[in-house]
């Protein structure tokens, strides 16, 4: 049923014409990054000689895609990556020691050790050692919590607040102005400034979803009736991918979003362009058909009479990285297929099939939508 589906991969977006940010995860220029001074970069510990297994682990961890916690591009993700590497090294040593003792104990030995010696092993290996190690590790992690996720509102220096609402199976994104009022709406694609903390207000419209950008930091659930918040500080410009991390129904697998992390100036320019009184897009037959076939009942497009709130906002759809919440690459072909029969691409989607429309109509609508910038 999904045999014909073609997924777009953000790793290959570097050739995309409409962005200057290279998403290829292995090619970031590290000098551009602005890692927070409070937290050591993970590569500071690479210098030490470590176990082969750890090197192998790190080799696997490098260049690991646009949705990887092992390729951090944010303050929280870097700190956790660092914590992870410490734990992997420690864990590998502890595992090797434990299994080493077990293997020795299982071998035929000339003489068994005394009960007293064996009891001492229980006390030192089973109690004393874990108590010390766990205490140190826990202290490290608890100290890290407020570092990566400040508790107090005052500690969040983010000015650009964004409200993200999880819906089955897409993301409603509302940019807010300084006073917290809605500035403009979009869907399934976030634009964030690099080197500055952005605070998100997270909501759910129907069921529980979870907001997660692995490259920037950990996740936070979106729960109906509860207002959760999260703040993230990207340290590297680029394009990342965020999935829904809480099972939310049939097409939970097909609910992702793109995150475009931009330099501050670019970000401000992008925001300004969006906040300005929207310019009516060029009138075409596609636009006329969009309204005639009732698309505007569910979708909104700034600068046009379309103000539907049921489905995702389609303003500047042509600029987006993907279609259908990270499911399809943004091509006219994909858009046509989606309009014709959304459920065949995304089972359980609320949008009805428009396969009964003449091919020409669908093509015109898709051409118009694809041209929206």
């Amino acid at each position, binding site marked *: 049923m999904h045999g014909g589906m073609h997924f777009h991969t953000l790793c290959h977006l570097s050739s995309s014409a409409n962005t200057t940010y290279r998403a290829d995860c292995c090619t970031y220029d590290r000098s551009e990054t602005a890692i927070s001074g409070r937290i050591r970069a993970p590569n500071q510990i690479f210098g030490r000689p470590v176990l082969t297994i750890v090197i192998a682990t790190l080799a696997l961890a490098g260049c690991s895609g646009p949705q*990887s916690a092992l390729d951090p591009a944010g303050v929280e993700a870097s700190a956790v990556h660092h914590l992870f590497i410490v734990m992997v090294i420690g864990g590998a040593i502890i595992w090797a020691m434990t299994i080493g003792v*077990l293997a*020795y104990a299982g071998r035929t030995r000339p003489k068994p050790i005394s009960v007293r010696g064996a009891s001492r092993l229980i006390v030192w290996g089973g109690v004393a050692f874990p108590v010390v190690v766990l205490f140190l590790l826990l202290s490290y992690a608890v100290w890290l919590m407020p570092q990566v996720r400040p508790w107090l509102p005052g500690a969040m220096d983010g000015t650009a607040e964004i409200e993200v609402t999880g819906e089955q199976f897409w993301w409603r994104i509302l940019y807010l102005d300084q006073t917290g009022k809605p500035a403009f709406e979009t869907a399934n694609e976030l634009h964030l400034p690099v080197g500055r903390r952005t605070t998100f207000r997270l909501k759910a419209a*129907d069921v529980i979803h979870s907001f997660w950008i692995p490259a920037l930091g950990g996740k936070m659930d979106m729960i109906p009736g509860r207002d959760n918040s999260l703040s993230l500080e990207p340290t590297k410009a680029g394009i990342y991918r965020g999935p829904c991390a809480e*099972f939310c129904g049939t097409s939970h697998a097909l609910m992702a979003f793109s995150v475009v992390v931009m330099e501050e100036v670019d970000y401000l320019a992008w925001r300004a362009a969006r906040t300005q009184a929207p310019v009516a897009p060029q009138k075409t037959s596609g636009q006329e058909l969009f309204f005639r076939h009732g698309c505007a009942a569910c979708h909104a497009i700034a600068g046009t009479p379309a103000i539907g709130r049921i489905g995702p906002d389609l303003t500047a759809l042509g600029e987006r990285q993907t279609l259908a919440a990270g499911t399809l690459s943004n091509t006219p072909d994909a858009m046509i297929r989606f309009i014709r029969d959304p459920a065949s691409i995304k089972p359980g989607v609320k949008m009805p099939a428009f396969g009964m429309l003449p091919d020409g109509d669908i093509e015109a609508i898709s051409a118009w939508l694809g041209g929206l910038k």
Partner: protein
Amino acid sequence: MSATDLPTFTDEERAGQEERLRKVWTTPSGWRYWTSVNNTEIGLWYGAAAFIFMLFAGLLGLMVRVQLAVPDNSFISADLFNQAFTLHGTIMMFLFAVPIFEAIAVYLLPSMLGTRELPFPRLSAFGFWSFAIGGVFVCGSIFFNAAPNTGWFMYPPLATDKEYSGIGADIWLLGLSFIEVASIAAAVELIVGIMKCRAPGMRINMMPLFAWYLLIVAGMILFAFPPLIAGDILFEMERMFDWPFFDAARGGDPLLWQHLFWIFGHPEVYIIFLPAIAIMAMVVPTFSQRPIVGYSWIVLAAVGTGFLSFGLWVHHMFATGLPQMSLAFFSAASEAVAIPTGVQIFVFIATMLAGRVIFSVPMLFGAGGLAIFVIGGLTGVMVALVPFDWQAHDTYFIVAHLHYVLIGGMLFPVVAGIYYYYPLFDGKKLSDRFGKVSFWLMFVGFNVAFFPMHFSGLRGMPRRIFTYPAGIGWDWFNLISTIGAFVFAFGVGVVVIDVVRPKKRQPRCEQNPWNAGTLEFISEPEENWGVRSVPIITSRYPAWDQPDLIDNIKAGRYYLPDSPMGERETLVTTVLDARPVQCLRVGGTSVVTMVAAAALGGVFIALTFHWWWITIACAIVTLGAILYWLWTGTAKIPETQDYDVGLGLKLPVYASGPASVGWWAMFITMVGDGTAYASLIFGYFFYWTIHEDFTGGHAGPGAFWPMVALVLFVLAWLLMLAARSLNKANRIRATQGVLVLSTVLTLAGCGAGLAGPYLYSMDPTLFVYPAIVWVVAIWTVVHGAVAVIMQLYCLARSLSGRMTARYDMDLVNVVLYWHFMVITAVTSFAVIGLFPLLR
């Protein structure tokens, strides 16, 4: 008692004894075989059923792996995938991991404790049939495309959305509630069995470690399952009648379900893991040929694990936005549980070091399992740290972690147990060669399947996705995982073949083939009586330390070597010192347990389909069957009170109060019941904490009627105390009169309890406050109705002369129920009547 004091029987006498014992303990033939209640049959059926469910869930797991082998796959649809992974987790947890230990425990404990039978064989049978019916119902749903599809954790509002989840969620809620009943029945059986039915002399600090672990686990079941049952009740009320417990728009909160689910769900992990360690605690000393090093250490560690496991549940909810202070607390508690776990592992290593290890297939599986489990433990330490969990939560890293824990910590030890204990089943060993082949297939396959998931998870692959795009960095990891899963499945297949292959030509092994130090290998596959005579135990490893013990047991030189009255008999001993205090007559073969389980199954299944009349009919049959079972099978007045159990000891056959096993069963059941009730009250106050005004402006039940109900229930309880005293004083007529009066007051109390919410027109569909008040009131009134049935039962027993001043077990147990009843009633009516006034 020295061997010279033991009686010696002639061959003829022994043959006669054995003849009579065999007749009493015989397993019926033909279709009646299935009405057997003996622990060896029930244990075997229970284990086989759990294993078959496991294989089925394994196939579902393979389906999931095939679908994920390559990106954009279309092997199965999204909806079938969602059903498959939901059932995979549900079956593995509820139909395999927990029941397999109930099975092993029921099978092994009697002989291990040196006793004939557990105290309530019919309850075991009832539990098994409930489990089998519920299990088939839940598993079968996928063939009708009606399986639950919301994940085994059933989070609302997705799972309360009827359009999405259809009947699947009801099948999960009701089918599993039914199975939870079976688990609690097993917990009662195991706790009373371990505490009260050990061989004389087996003081509590001499119990085999397996018994210690099972005692702890059964206790955990008693406190862990009831919160889930309470959650299930709220959930089903929302689905059936639209009471908004988890609907945020009407004051409910989806997080309450998460709390109740994980208060159950985390201890569940240890309920699964501890019995597996228990098997290793039997296997390791045997193959090290020495007693365990650090017996007290391992017992304390197991108890500590059990306690701590109840304080960890929030680590499943680190990403729900709870305050960081509480996250830090639960993170610390989660790390702390690693310490007792480490102690248990090091106790095994120390025992091996202090002994001479004989390497064998069970040890191979044990050691391999440990190597896997330690990785799972270490990743567990990682995910217990809040910042790391924010990344790893709900990704394939967790999938890897939990399979390392459960397969290393549970499945491998279980297979070790199968190889170790198989000779008990038909006196033959499984094949070493098959064992080694299956071990290496399973070990390598497992690691190939699950190790890469750590990486796919941290590379951002969420759990429960039916497909994924190519090129995101997960393709190879998933393909390798799928290949590994099939290798692993082949390994499991080899174990199955080894177990089921015909072994007719294989010679029998010795009765204690591994030279174990504990008693379980005295059980003979051909005999149903558990032990030929109930021995006197003076050591933790009696088969090593007590010379001639096994010969003397078999020669019938200890207690109960005969069954002159044709009754199934076993000894009851004191909890700490195991002094014999009673000769207990246990229930024998009966069809009533099957009927009761089938009818109760009918209640749950009919409820799923909203067939109300069938529900009511099945409920009446269930009640009738249980009453018949109790009336004919329990508290029988014996022909004599001084019964000769052998070795010059005379013991009573009838006991009442704390000396009797029935009293303990009631007490333990009511502790579980009280835990479910406490969860509901927790819900009431949970809503109070999350709302400014938790009534949401809706009328309460007032104070008057709840107070009337409270007073009536207290009076009814006082009358029950009076009835007990009057009966003891042999004033039978007065007892009967007081029982009638108490029944009337209870009925009035039930009416008054419902009058408050009813008269103030509290509509439970409008807002969560009226709904939770109604639930608390209904829970109390239903308990009142059960109390009325018990009161009438006592009255009938008294009128028919089956309950007298001397033989008053029924009344004493009902009064015990009433202690819990009055606590429930006072709490309920004070909370719903008075608490709103305090705001």
